[in-house]
């Protein structure tokens, strides 16, 4: 490692920052095109209703309103429905019925944003309310209102059943177990609520037939393909993929909420095709909270079996997954419940059996990420909570119980009972480090002293294992598109380079970190490397950024492409140094004749030669492309310890300390990794204490604005204490693992466990998140412990 090139392991300052700190970012809403129209959306007040009539005459009478588009209009082009990423269908605009509150009903196109909003207020819709079904358990009862009568083959609200693991063996182990614990655990609906909402500018050029869409999307290439396929199935006729350009410019936070295709994107695009003018649609916060895809909503019955000595033998989970009105999750297609069956976590056990049933309800489509795709947060919450219940039942320290059951460091790669192969890990080391840092033994003594005085404090542990970086492509695809990822590198004659990648940044700092990978592999200074992404006309095809997959997939592709370049550069060096390639070695970012540092060539020199002095028979230029198909996922992990104090007068939970030890293998940029962990912890704390989306019995969302959907401020957020261990991934070319979501996955059970721990002497074994003051107070009250 050399500091001057800014390669692996350096806290290089971000290349993105100079534009952002000057207010010169380029977000979708910043774009203004000549003649651009604005779109606004009429939404349903009802969660379930027939649409009897839509009267747009008053809206159309407003000067500046250009058009009002309804589901019937789209239906004429066979565009009223679209596929979801899980091969279900969802309405773009309804033809005759709405199935969730705030569903799109019609769109108004106008010359100005304000006029479009007036147009929306002037559209008169006549509804006939239908009884909604909001509770997924009731949705499965006979006689429940049917959310999707359009699925003629499926006359119930049950979508699918999925299971994993060895049922017979698991049941047998439970029958033979000395100790069994069981909890019903609910992870509520939550919403990523990135500070930038969703939106797009669609611009269809009638002359060239080219459609350009600037879009808040985490996966521009996949969107392009979906758009082409959707138009192919429509009466508009296919827009061929080379005539569709999706541009994902600067994105103000994604976290999974910007993976799906929302009706607004399709409507704006349809409006642009119809009018031949650019059309901008930017949703407001209420629309974002009410109608965009949600995460979680998992009702889990979790059981753990153990021997008397505390050794785990088996785990059993039964889950009801509330998907709202469509299965619009962003999971790999063979995994309707994502990677939920990684729920055996960091522990050895012989068998496990996991069942999930997907259910329709009259709510917006759910099942996308909240800074954790693929249901890993759900899995980790299940195991980390139930391990604490087991410790409580066995009356042993939860840290000791974890140490006893951890997968031993020498057992990697480890095959889990549900079939995952964990690449590497050292769980005891991480937990030990966290315990030392927080002063665990001392805290337990303090807790005992306080309990004696009637004061309530709790210590919660979470030792989680994440699973990130999908592919491999033999197992993972989205709508049939394999989950590889890509990079393309061109080294210019004077020793600078451009890198284009198939993934897309929403704040992760790809322009910096992918440059560092190339710097490390090629020995070119990071400041001489431009990284581009997000434009489907220029970047190589990739599946996008979510599920902490950028580094595991495109990061690996970048390293592999760079290595191809280095291979060619070696031949150039051999030519220039008049040596055999076999006699060359790569030392200090240079090719040198083995043992003779004076005879060497830098990459800059070799790049120049690639265009000016390449050997006969060799193609000129120095560039490479790699489509990387990872051999396995990566399994980052961590040990978190949370200390809470509880106010007996109000039920308030205050996080006093939170120590997070993370292990994501080799690190490209420690500054960026630490920043991601800070953010991830905050998005782990938020649903643990504050955020939840709930509905009343009529299907009204009860958190329709940020006044009630409670994003933490700097005051609720504790001062995170972070540390790390390093266990490289054996199969990743850089030894790296993904990290963006680890903290969001690992933090909630640490907090929930801390609160339960504070109340465990009262016999409390579980509290559902968010742990609100009133929930805690009611427990205290039941035990006569409120402050008087």
């Amino acid at each position, binding site marked *: 490692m050399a500091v001057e090139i800014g390669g692996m392991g350096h806290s290089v300052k971000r290349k993105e*920052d100079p534009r952002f700190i*000057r*207010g010169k970012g380029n977000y979708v809403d910043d774009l203004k095109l000549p003649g651009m129209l604005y779109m606004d959306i009429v939404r349903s007040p009802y969660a379930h209703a027939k649409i009897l009539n839509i009267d747009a005459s008053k809206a159309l009478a407003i000067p500046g309103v250009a058009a009002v588009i309804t589901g019937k209009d789209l239906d004429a082009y066979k565009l009223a429905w679209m596929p979801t990423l899980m091969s279900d269908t969802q309405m773009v605009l309804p033809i005759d019925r709405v199935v969730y509150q705030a569903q799109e009903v019609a769109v108004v196109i106008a010359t100005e944003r*304000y006029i479009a909003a007036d147009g929306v207020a002037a559209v008169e819709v006549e509804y006939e309310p239908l009884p909604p079904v909001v509770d997924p358990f009731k949705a499965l009862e006979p006689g429940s209102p049917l959310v999707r009568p359009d699925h003629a083959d499926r006359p119930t609200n049950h979508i699918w059943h999925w299971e994993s693991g060895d049922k017979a063996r698991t049941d047998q182990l439970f029958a033979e177990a000395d100790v069994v614990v069981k909890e019903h655990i609910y992870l509520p609906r939550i919403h*990523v*609520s990135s500070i*930038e909402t969703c939106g797009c500018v669609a611009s269809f050029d009638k002359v060239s037939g080219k459609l350009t869409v600037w879009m808040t999307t985490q996966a521009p290439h996949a969107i392009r393909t979906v758009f082409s396929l959707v138009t192919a199935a429509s009466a508009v006729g296919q827009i061929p993929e080379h005539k569709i350009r999706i541009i994902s410019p600067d994105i103000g936070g994604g976290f999974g909420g910007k993976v799906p295709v929302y009706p607004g994107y399709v409507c704006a695009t349809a409006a642009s095709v119809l009018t031949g003018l650019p059309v901008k649609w930017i949703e407001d916060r209420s629309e974002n909270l009410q109608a965009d895809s949600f995460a979680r909503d998992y009702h889990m019955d979790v059981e753990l079996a153990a021997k008397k000595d505390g050794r785990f033998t088996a785990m059993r989970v039964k889950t009801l997954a509330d998907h709202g009105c469509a299965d619009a999750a962003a999971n790999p297609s063979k995994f309707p419940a994502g990677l939920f069956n990684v729920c055996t976590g960091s522990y050895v056990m012989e068998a496990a059996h996991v069942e999930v049933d997907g259910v329709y309800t009259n709510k917006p489509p759910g099942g996308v990420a909240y800074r954790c795709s693929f249901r890993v947060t759900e899995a980790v919450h299940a195991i980390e909570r139930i391990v604490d219940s087991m410790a409580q039942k066995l009356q042993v320290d939860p840290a000791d119980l974890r140490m006893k059951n951890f997968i031993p460091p020498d057992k990697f790669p480890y095959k889990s009972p549900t079939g995952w192969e964990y690449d590497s890990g050292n769980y005891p080391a991480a937990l030990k480090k966290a315990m030392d840092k927080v002063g665990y033994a001392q805290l337990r003594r303090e807790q005992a002293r306080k309990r004696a005085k009637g004061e309530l404090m709790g210590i919660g542990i979470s030792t989680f294992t994440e699973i990130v970086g999908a592919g491999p492509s033999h197992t993972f695809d989205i709508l049939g598109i394999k989950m590889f990822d890509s990079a393309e590198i061109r080294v210019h004659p004077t020793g600078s380079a451009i890198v284009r990648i198939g993934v897309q940044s929403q704040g992760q700092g790809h322009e910096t970190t992918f440059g560092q990978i190339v710097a490390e592999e090629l020995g070119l200074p990071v400041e001489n490397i431009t990284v581009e992404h997000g434009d489907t006309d220029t970047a190589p095809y990739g599946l996008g950024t979510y599920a902490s997959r950028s580094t595991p997939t495109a990061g690996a592709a970048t390293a592999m492409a760079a290595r191809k370049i280095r291979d060619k550069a070696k031949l150039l060096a051999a030519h220039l140094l008049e040596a055999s390639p076999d006699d060359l070695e790569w030392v200090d970012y240079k090719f040198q004749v083995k043992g003779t540092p004076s005879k060497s060539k830098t990459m800059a020199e070799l790049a120049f030669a690639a265009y000016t002095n390449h050997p006969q028979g060799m193609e000129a230029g120095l560039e490479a492309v790699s489509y990387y198909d990872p051999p396995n996922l990566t399994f980052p992990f961590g040990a978190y310890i949370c200390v809470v104090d509880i106010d007996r007068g109000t039920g308030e939970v205050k996080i006093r300390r939170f120590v997070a030890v993370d292990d994501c293998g080799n690190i490209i940029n420690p500054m960026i990794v630490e920043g991601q962990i800070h953010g991830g912890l*905050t998005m782990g704390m938020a649903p643990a204490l504050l955020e939840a989306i709930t509905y009343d019995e009529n299907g009204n969302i009860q958190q329709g604005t940020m006044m009630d959907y409670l994003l933490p401020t700097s*005051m609720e957020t504790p001062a995170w204490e972070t540390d790390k261990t390093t266990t490289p991934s054996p199969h990743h070319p850089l030894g790296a693992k993904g990290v963006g979501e680890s903290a969001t996955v690992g933090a909630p059970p640490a907090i929930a466990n801390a609160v339960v721990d504070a109340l465990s002497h009262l016999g409390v074994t579980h509290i559902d998140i968010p742990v609100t003051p009133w929930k805690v107070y009611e427990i205290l009250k039941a035990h006569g412990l409120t402050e008087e």
Partner: protein
Amino acid sequence: MTTHKVKVTINGQVHEAKVEPRLLLVHFIREVANLTGTHIGCDTTSCGACTVLVNGTLMKSCTVLTVQADGANIQTVEGLEQNGQLHPIQEGFMQEHGLQCGFCTPGMMLVGKALLEDNPDPTEAEVRKAISGNLCRCTGYVNIVKAIQYAGKKMQESAEVKTPAAVHAEG
């Protein structure tokens, strides 16, 4: 609808326009003055992405009517850099990794700048309180606190460098 003629100075440049009374100041800044560094993140004055300085006072420009700001002197993120020189708060955010997606950053930096003008050496608790009207979804606030404190130190250093001359001039 009656329109009102307004004159608003933004970052030293005068913008005159006829506006509807309902035009929100943030839309005036973004759409009329074409300064898109000021962002919109919510409808309910919750997030602070639209924060600007109006006559030196922090305001959420999505909750101010343009007509209310008639005659005002406004500073936005685009006005922080002067003569090609970054403001210390901008340096602080870059040096301390106080931003990720960059969407809340303009508001956060203006809050930091205003805080440091009142309190050049704020504690962590003081910074946290000052930025509590601005939401960030990426950073967990840790590095934003550091960025603002970095800028405070930097401003104090440059003030110290200037002090002898200033004393001399006054003396």
